[in-house]
């Protein structure tokens, strides 16, 4: 049961981020990537304001936890910015995006090395297959010849 709870939330994240793949494309087809990113950030601020009003955030936190959460936002945003830089620096989209799809591999390595997480053989195989799947999914199909 406990497994299903975390997996449920992970699938919700997967679906919502998957939808953003389409909405982001619809946005950048119409406006610049900078303006799109700016309004993405405004939405984050609006969501945080809603969280402040609706939810009751727990304020009594240790400094390491606060630093890690703030770092999470900074790393996520900087990663988005550097991925744009990679695409603007002459990298082919199919190669850059496939390469970037390897980022969970670093998370797995860091979590095992620093947090001493243990994976079963099935989970380790699943992590490898997931990364391979993400790479294949990010490949653009070749244009159809007329």
């Amino acid at each position, binding site marked *: 049961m406990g497994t299903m709870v975390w997996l449920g939330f992970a699938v919700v994240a997967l679906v919502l981020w998957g939808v953003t793949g389409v909405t982001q494309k619809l946005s950048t087809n119409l406006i610049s990537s900078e303006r799109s990113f700016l309004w993405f950030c405004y939405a984050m601020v609006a969501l945080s304001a809603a969280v402040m009003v609706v939810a009751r955030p727990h304020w009594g936190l240790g400094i390491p936890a606060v630093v890690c959460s703030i770092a999470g936002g900074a790393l996520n945003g900087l990663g988005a910015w550097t991925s744009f830089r990679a695409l603007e620096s*002459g990298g082919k989209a199919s190669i850059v995006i496939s390469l970037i799809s390897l980022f969970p591999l670093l998370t797995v390595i860091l979590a095992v090395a620093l947090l001493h997480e243990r994976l079963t053989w099935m989970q380790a195989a699943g992590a490898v297959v997931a990364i391979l799947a993400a790479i294949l999914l990010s490949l653009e199909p070749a244009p159809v010849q007329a």
Partner: protein
Amino acid sequence: MKQEARPPRVPLWLFWSLVTIVMWGTWGLVSKIASDEVDAYMNQLLFTVGIAPLLVFAGWKVSRAGKKGATGEKPGMRSRGVFWAFLTGILGGVGNMAYFEAMVKGGKASVVTPVTALFPMVTVLLALLFLKERLGRLQWIGLGLAFVAIYLLNA
């Protein structure tokens, strides 16, 4: 002595791609550490604090491009583009909260991150259904492998 200009050993696109891997790969680690103490709501607030400097930077870039008249945007399309960007932020933010909650509920960073990194499977399915895009053979294989991965990671 004059030296000949040599191309950089590491192409810029490769450098920025590797930096991206480090940024997003480390994001999973710090999220797991924070999830021991922080709830998903508080994390959303602090996450926004972390992204704030980039908001200022993006605002400056947009303002500068606007003054130069070099936005490259289609006239009359800005409000629709802004709507989709704002929706992307809301969905992405709620997705972040769900990702964080998965870790709060005991999901390992080494398992939750590979599962959520499969989000392109949803994007390609939606693009197939609504944008009438075609999938290549490798994308179909990737889609099949994504389901295999979710099964294995949940084993």
